């Protein structure tokens, strides 16, 4: 179980502190599949980074399986079983895809791991993780680095971003298989209605606060009516997505 108690995050911006996460209280249960959604800038990525240890919360506690991990480093949390697939994975000059896969896990079936995320090993094992990869390719590599790690919590930050519509269903299946096989807490940060509808629970985060949370079948209809995307009229967007505030 993962428990956040009165977690606050402030980030220095120039000479003032901006409050990014405000009094977050959250309990996430083992084996549950959570969807974390809400408007851009709402604090989803920041919350994920606080759980991973990339950002240090200024107030509050993080309890993981009964252990206070608030003061653990990123490395220690990774070793304790927390995994995070970045929204914008960084590029590495000179590092090959096979190198980063090896770092992420000593599971040697590199080829199978690449095939699983829809990348042909023949073409990709020796490619560099630099700017020559497209955004979608990089997201798949990112997913491959996370899926083979022995984890207890996996956070996927907008895994659908940049991935073509046809592959999306496969990636989602991959995340669900991983969830079912490994008894993990899965948290998928997403704007995608398909993912929201599959989640055990939806958590709505806006303006650094948890605005609502509940089982998918209760919350989704609410989100649909209350916060349906109105881009259709304004900019021809996709009404599968949650409204921007």
């Amino acid at each position, binding site marked *: 179980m993962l428990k956040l108690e009165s977690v606050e995050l402030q980030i220095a911006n120039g000479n003032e502190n901006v409050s990014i996460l405000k009094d977050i209280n959250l309990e996430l249960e083992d084996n549950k599949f959570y969807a974390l959604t809400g408007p851009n800038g709402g604090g989803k990525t920041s919350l994920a980074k606080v759980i991973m240890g990339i950002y240090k919360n200024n107030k509050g506690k993080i309890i993981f399986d009964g252990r206070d991990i608030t003061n653990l480093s*990123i490395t220690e949390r990774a*070793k304790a079983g927390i995994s*995070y697939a970045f929204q*914008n994975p*960084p590029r*590495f000059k*000179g*590092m090959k895809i096979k190198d980063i896969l090896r770092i992420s896990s000593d599971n040697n079936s590199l080829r199978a791991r690449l095939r699983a995320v829809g990348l042909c090993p023949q073409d990709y094992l020796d490619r560099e993780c630099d700017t020559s990869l497209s955004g979608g390719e990089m997201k798949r590599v990112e997913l491959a*680095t996370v899926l083979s790690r022995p984890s207890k919590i996996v956070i996927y930050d907008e895994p659908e971003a940049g991935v073509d519509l046809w592959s999306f269903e496969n990636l989602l299946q991959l995340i669900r298989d991983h969830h079912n096989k490994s008894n993990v807490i899965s948290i998928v940060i997403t704007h995608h209605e398909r993912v929201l509808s599959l989640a055990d629970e939806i958590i709505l985060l806006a303006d650094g606060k948890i605005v609502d949370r509940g089982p998918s079948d209760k919350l989704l209809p609410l989100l649909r009516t209350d916060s349906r995307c109105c881009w259709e009229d304004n900019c021809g967007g996709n009404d599968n997505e949650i409204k921007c505030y």
Partner: protein
Amino acid sequence: MKLNAIEQELLETIADLHKIPTGAVNIRKNGEGILRHSSANIEVRPKSDKPGIDVIVAPNTKNEAVHIPVMITMSGVKDVVYNTIVIGEGADVTVVAGCGIHNSGMEKSQHDGIHEIIVKKGARMRYIEKHYGSGQGSGERVLNPQTLLTMEENSIVEMELVQIKGVDSTIRDTKAKLAKGASLVVTERLLTHGNQKAVSDMTIELIGADSNAQVISRSVAKDNSKQVFRPIIIARERSKGHVECDSILIDHGKISSTPAITAEHPDAQLTHEAAIGRIAEEQLLKLMTLGLTEEEAEDVILRGFLQ
């Protein structure tokens, strides 16, 4: 010939030699040739007027390599050597040069290698030069290579210039002249640490039409070390050139990089870019989320970068 452990390590590091090669070879140690033989197609012979060797590759020699490593294992040696390498028309060969200095004494040890390389019409050469220093002594390890490369029509050269570690001071001077249709790629990899200094000057002249050159330099300056890069490509004809210098600073390293391009022909296409900075924070963070410590992450990033 038997090699001791230090010599073995130097040869493995600079020339990937795990045993004495069977093909054409010249091994120079502390200012003297200690092993030399030619192959059917590659002649290796000492110069008569000054220290050094001539390496003559017969036309159309294919898939052969010649190893010409230099070792210095004593303190207080200054070795100056002149090598001439001629790659015959239509040949396709690899030249593995390189120098390792093991200095465990207090005096400076220095090797100045002056290479003149001529790559004849239609020939192709891969040239690998690795520099490495070891030994606990306070004596400086100095390497000052000069390379003068002449590329004839339609020849192709790939040069890999690598300074791995342990070299206290280096001044590297590389000059190349390219005839019609010639193509050159230089990749330079440099790591300095401690109080080391490295200067690399490179002048590449695109003299013939449709020649092209690329210089890709990557370097890391750690501790208090200093590096200066001054690569220049000059296009005198319709030709293409690209220079790229990419450097990472660690601790208090200092780097100056001034790639330059000069066009003397209206159809020349030249580009350059240079970047210097610390390791991107996001890269460290990502690797730490995979369970590496910050130091391990830094190490992995630098190794990849210098690959």
